């Protein structure tokens, strides 16, 4: 056991922390700050922040140098996540491109794709969306119906995607399309890259129950896509998607832990302002949630170790997803419960404004649905990790 980081990693942390201290305005850390901005304003601020961060050398820290990365270790990537959360930096507006598309291109992209896409993505010049889910194909990706008809060097794509994060502000989308007519389920799919500004692409924002519109629907009507804009081989989309999704597995949840600790402390402050933090019953419930958060931290250190040792985590990433999503959602259930008689209000007292925490509380209802619902994750754990016989 050794919980210290390598000298290089420690040095990286110090450098990063100093840069963050100098570059993150104090007002960003105020609980209500981001909730107080309108959505476009917030997006622009986050995009600009992300660009500045990349220019300062804090993007792609564990990417190879040849792709503009820093050539660092997984530990450095975890440190980046941790320090960003600690500094209350906003989450990236290009997460899906950075987490999924870039490493997929590094592995199976054409030389042109590598040259043209990865750099601008890293520098946040191009915002990438993901188009996987469809109405009727949520957890069940293989049920998708968006299709592309071959026409010379192009595909003519028609169909609809849903739950696309930042759809309204995206520039490009990597999306699963059925490119072989008559194929079904896992066969005949391709991962296509589509320009969201192309004719025939329409976006409709989806308003969430919190009132925020981070997701959108994307409609394709006779959108012409060059056949070369395919990643991983035509008709080979399922395998490419599995490769792509596997890059989530290596991700340690240390950034999430740090972020949820922020939420925990904000909730404790609310409990105190409402005179509830000394109540033994409330203390037990908060402690129960904190136990789950600390377990997430220890688990993340273990995952990071495994990745640094070069081990493939395989389906154990479902364990991580279940733990973080349920710890996070559960924390906000306790939040709901401790608010007391004026729980119905946005401002239960003059000095407590719950706008931001309540928005986050509503958000936590979604984390057990997207990215593989808890039900899907449990099936994976049961069958792939525990080896239980498959249900029919």
């Amino acid at each position: 056991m050794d919980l210290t980081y390598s000298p290089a990693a420690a040095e990286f942390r110090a450098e990063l922390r100093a840069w963050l201290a100098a570059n993150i305005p104090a007002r960003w850390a105020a609980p209500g700050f981001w909730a107080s901005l309108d959505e476009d304003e917030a997006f622009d601020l986050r995009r600009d922040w992300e660009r500045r961060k990349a220019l300062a050398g804090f993007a792609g820290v564990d990417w190879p140098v040849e792709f503009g990365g820093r050539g660092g270790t997984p530990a450095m990537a975890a440190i980046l996540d941790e320090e960003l959360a600690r500094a209350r930096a906003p989450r990236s507006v290009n997460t899906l491109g950075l987490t999924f598309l870039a490493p997929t291109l590094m592995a199976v992209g054409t030389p042109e794709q590598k040259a043209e896409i990865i750099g601008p993505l890293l520098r946040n010049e191009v915002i990438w969306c993901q188009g996987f889910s469809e109405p009727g194909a949520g957890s069940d990706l293989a049920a998708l119906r968006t299709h592309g008809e071959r026409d010379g060097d192009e595909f003519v794509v028609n169909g609809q995607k849903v739950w696309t994060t930042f759809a309204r502000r995206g520039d490009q989308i990597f999306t699963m399309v059925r490119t072989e007519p008559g194929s079904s389920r896992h066969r005949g799919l391709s991962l296509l890259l589509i320009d969201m500004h192309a004719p025939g692409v329409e976006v409709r924002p989806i308003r969430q129950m919190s009132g925020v519109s981070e997701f959108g629907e994307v409609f394709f009507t006779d959108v012409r896509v060059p056949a070369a804009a395919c990643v991983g081989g035509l008709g080979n989309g399922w395998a490419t998607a599995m490769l792509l999704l596997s890059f989530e597995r290596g991700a340690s949840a240390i950034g999430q832990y740090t972020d949820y600790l922020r939420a925990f402390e904000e909730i404790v402050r609310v409990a105190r302002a409402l005179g509830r933090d000394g109540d033994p019953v409330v203390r037990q419930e908060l402690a129960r949630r904190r136990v789950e958060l600390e377990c997430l931290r220890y688990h993340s250190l273990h995952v990071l170790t495994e990745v640094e040792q070069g081990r493939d985590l395989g389906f154990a990433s479902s364990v991580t997803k279940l733990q973080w999503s349920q710890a996070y959602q559960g924390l906000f259930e306790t939040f709901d419960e401790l608010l007391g008689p004026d729980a119905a209000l946005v401002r239960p007292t003059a000095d407590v404004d719950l706008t931001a925490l309540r928005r986050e509380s509503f958000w936590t209802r979604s984390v057990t649905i997207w990215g593989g619902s808890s039900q899907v994750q449990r099936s994976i754990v049961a069958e792939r990790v525990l080896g239980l016989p498959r249900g029919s």
Partner: protein
Amino acid sequence: MFFALTDEQRALAASVRDLLAGRFDLAAVRAVFDDPAGDGHPLDLWKTIGEQGWLSVRVPTEHDGLDLGLVDVQVIAREFGAGVVPGPWAATVLAGEAVLRAGGPEQAAAVLGPLAAGDLVATVALRGPGGGPGPDGVAVRATAAGRLDGIASGVEYAGVADLVVVAAIEGPGPSAAGTGPGLGLYLLDPTVAGVTIEPQAAPDGTTRLAALTLAGAAATRLPGSGAAALADLRRRGAVLAAADLVGLARAALTRTVAYDTDRVQFGRPVGSFQAVAHHLADLHVAVTMAEHAVLYAAHALDAGRPDADLAVAVAKSKANQAGADTTAAMIQYHGGIGYTWEHDAHFFYKRARRLIAAFGDSQWHREQVARLTIDSVG
């Protein structure tokens, strides 16, 4: 022995359900929900409520009411919950309970008839900011001359009320025993001098809440009131909230079952996956128990049963749980769509969370259960 709804009560439930579905469906709810600056009080709905006599259930026959019990009221409250219906029906009914049980003959004559006819919107203001249910949660004081000073929080539909029943501390306050003088209920006309009404923003768009600030506002005491009357009103409020919760819990469950009977994932209806089906089965058990508990509590108050206090605490605790769990499951088992503004699931989810805190949250009611069932064991 008859622990069930009568045929008349079933017919009443069906009639409320059908009328609401026909004249005030979820699209109408949405219009109110999406207009938080509006008064949340659609007049066409209110007219229907008045015409149908849904405000006259508890009003004595001499004031042109039906003179029925809280059991009948909870029949209607459940349907309002099932339809996540906005408007001051519950608040008006509760204010009527106060006048009915603690008012003098003149007050009864002045209030109950118009209230039953739907000519009067009323509400109750029983606690201060952060104040719990009970005398120590009251933050309004009454002078001997009947002037009120202080603040009440979370007052439903204060903005459209013609009449507010206000709980106020009198003299040195209530005695330790929680009974006797020291606390009174007052009838307040909110248009008199010294009354300020400030809307309070709240996530549940199916209702409107406000803070009431009183500075020497003139009001009339309900002569039969006291700490016991406040406790009585709090119990009745808890039963109404619990009934609304079980109504919405049942609706949330039924809608989720219907959706997942049709929705296909991995080539099968989602509702045929055992993990989902078993969770829904557990929720059915919980909602069923909550329904029985609310029915029992309402009857226990009607009949003055000695276990009424326990029954109310049990009903509100269990209804809180059923409301919280079914509405969370409604979102989860609708998949992504259940989390959107466009879908109706969040009406149920947010209304449930408002009601869970109303008239005593789960922890408060469980402590009542503990007081009544642990401390009494010999």
